[in-house]
């Protein structure tokens, strides 16, 4: 099938665009590669800015409004830069009945951040996840990619404050 749209050049000569381009090319630069491409871009840059969204859309021939629709549908994608560190609090059922709510309250009290927010100093972003599948560790959190089980609000706050 001929590609009707010209492929755009990478927005900058940042090498990370190559990764995104490769991932799209491997899927034939077809519109169906949109979600995989967004994953690649977010892995490379940490979040999805308009430049990335435009580039991905133009490469795959997907209308901008649809790219935006997809990027905002899935909660895994974030359009805003994250803090230096991220802390994901699991709010699955097992974590919920084992104290996830108290952890969120504790974070809000000590660091003045709510889920999906970043502390005023840009250091820590708090996210929530609907079940990490680590129920045996409930309540579980992920701090910068490391899973921590059976945490208390006080411990977590102390760890984050020390970062």
């Amino acid at each position, binding site marked *: 099938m001929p590609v009707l749209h010209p492929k755009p050049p990478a927005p900058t000569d940042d090498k990370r665009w190559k990764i995104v381009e490769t991932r799209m090319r*491997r*899927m*034939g630069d*077809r*519109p*169906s*590669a*949109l*979600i*995989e491409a*967004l*994953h690649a871009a977010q892995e490379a840059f940490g979040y999805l800015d308009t430049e990335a969204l435009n580039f991905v859309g133009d490469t*795959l021939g*997907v209308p901008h409004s*649809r790219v935006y*629709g*997809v990027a905002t*549908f*899935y*909660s*895994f*994608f974030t359009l805003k830069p994250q803090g230096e560190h991220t802390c994901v609090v699991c*709010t*699955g*059922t*097992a974590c*919920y*009945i*084992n104290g996830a709510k108290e952890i969120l309250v504790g974070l809000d009290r000590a660091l003045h951040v709510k889920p999906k927010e970043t502390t005023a100093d840009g250091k820590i972003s708090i996210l929530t*996840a*609907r*079940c*990490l*599948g*680590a*129920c*045996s*560790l*409930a309540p*579980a959190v992920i701090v910068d990619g*490391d*899973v*921590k*089980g059976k945490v208390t609000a006080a411990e977590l706050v102390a760890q984050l404050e020390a970062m």
Partner: protein
Amino acid sequence: MSEMPSAARSIRRRVSTEEIAEQPPRASAYVCEAASCMSAQAHDITVRLGERAAEAGLTDVLIKRVGCLGLCAAGPLVEIAETAQLFERVKPDDVEGIIKALKKVKSTDTRQPQGPFFEKQLRVATENLGRIDPESLDDFVGRGGYEALKRVLSEMTSTDVREEITRSGLRGRGGAGYPTGLKWTTVAKAQGAQKYVICNADEGDPGAFMDRSVLESDPFSILEGMAIAAFAVHASEGYIYCRAEYPLAVSRLRLAIRLAQRAGFLGAGIADTSFNFDVQIRLGAGAFVCGEETALIASVEGRRGTPRPRPPYPAVQGLWDCPTLINNVETFANVGAILRKGSEWYAGIGVGKSKGTKVFALAGRIVNTGLVEVPMGMTLREIVYDIGGGLIDGRPFKAVQTGGPSGGCIPAQLLDMAVSYESLIEVGSFMGSGGLIVMDDTSCMVDVAKYFQDFCREESCGKCVPCRVGTTQLYMLLDLITRGEATLDDLAQLERLAGIVQKTALCGLGQGAPNPIFSTLRYFRDEYLAHIVDKVCPAGVCTITPAEVTA
């Protein structure tokens, strides 16, 4: 069009069982490296054990990374396979003790794990969990892996395979329990040159981690099950839709696909026959509704994951409008065993129309949090008390939640019910994917209902009105109740609206969203009334500020 690298086609190495069994070790230590134990630094234990064994000159000892050993609550876990000795909560300092134990093992030792946690289980879908190295194809083959596929391709017709699956009575493990053989037959008979097989590994139910453990611990069995299914329905391409929250599962699947391609179990001309089948992974991106099959298809196509009304069912019109078979991870995990051991054997397990076994993830206020597999028809009491070890701190049992956000809460008086698809529906719950969350008297059932409604309202795709608006309205009513501000009229409104949402929503998410409300009302209505009439939360969870009595 297949995206298999051409190199994989040319490099083909036959793996034989003998090759592996050359030098059986005298003693072997299995270290669980599934996600739960991994997050407790299990990998450091593996490394350290290896180093120490080498230093101690133990050349006839095998230190092996394996998948989930089941008892996740006590991780990191190390098992000495020959003596079934299990080391729990292993710390680096405990390594010496394990080395000592390894020295004592005699090559003739063959003990099975003891205790009700192990003895009451029956492992079919999870037979390789904790037994094989999930990153080793040889290990999988050594346990009978790919025997079924080879036999299917050399001795059976696609009709034979479908009939065998039909006779086994296997039903979909993704929730609804649709007969698998029937689904395969529909796809096989559907018109269309191109057909697809999709493995639903989105596992979105909060509190469920069965599929994750299987993917992390035994990825090849899923690939084998998918290949057999593809043969049976005449498909040549497959997708695994896995949630992005499971990075370890994804990386092990990626590796497994590569290894299977190299060994000729995926790709063109599988096992030297003319059968072609290849698999790609697609990542979810944090949308629960994408577990619903039509939403999943939209997502694989790169679109917003919104469901569409069925019919047409994906079996007739699915991915790119082609006939598509969608099955759950655990469903595929049963396929190899059924074909190896026969449909009669499988149909002999279970009760009534619920055949075989079911994997459950035990979580919540239970001692043995972890993964278990039991024959259908076991009672809840056996699962919770005998296998699960009862409740933490010996607290009173209040309810067990099954079926995720479309499920319900089962109270203590029903603990002796035998678990099956039918019985769970009868009591107002749902099998779902197999999460069992145990609650004690510290949980408020109205709060639990509110929790699930909050879940549904956040995960609603927003397409249809009853779910988009209705789940929020239901949530607002439940919030009113938990704040002690509701009247009996509000309760009536809650029940009325819940019924309307159930009947009119487009997909299973909206239709199932009222279930937690119905089931808690059915068994715990007095708790609702306590909040509404007496303005107290019996469990002390909800912060009710008593309304001032105005004269």
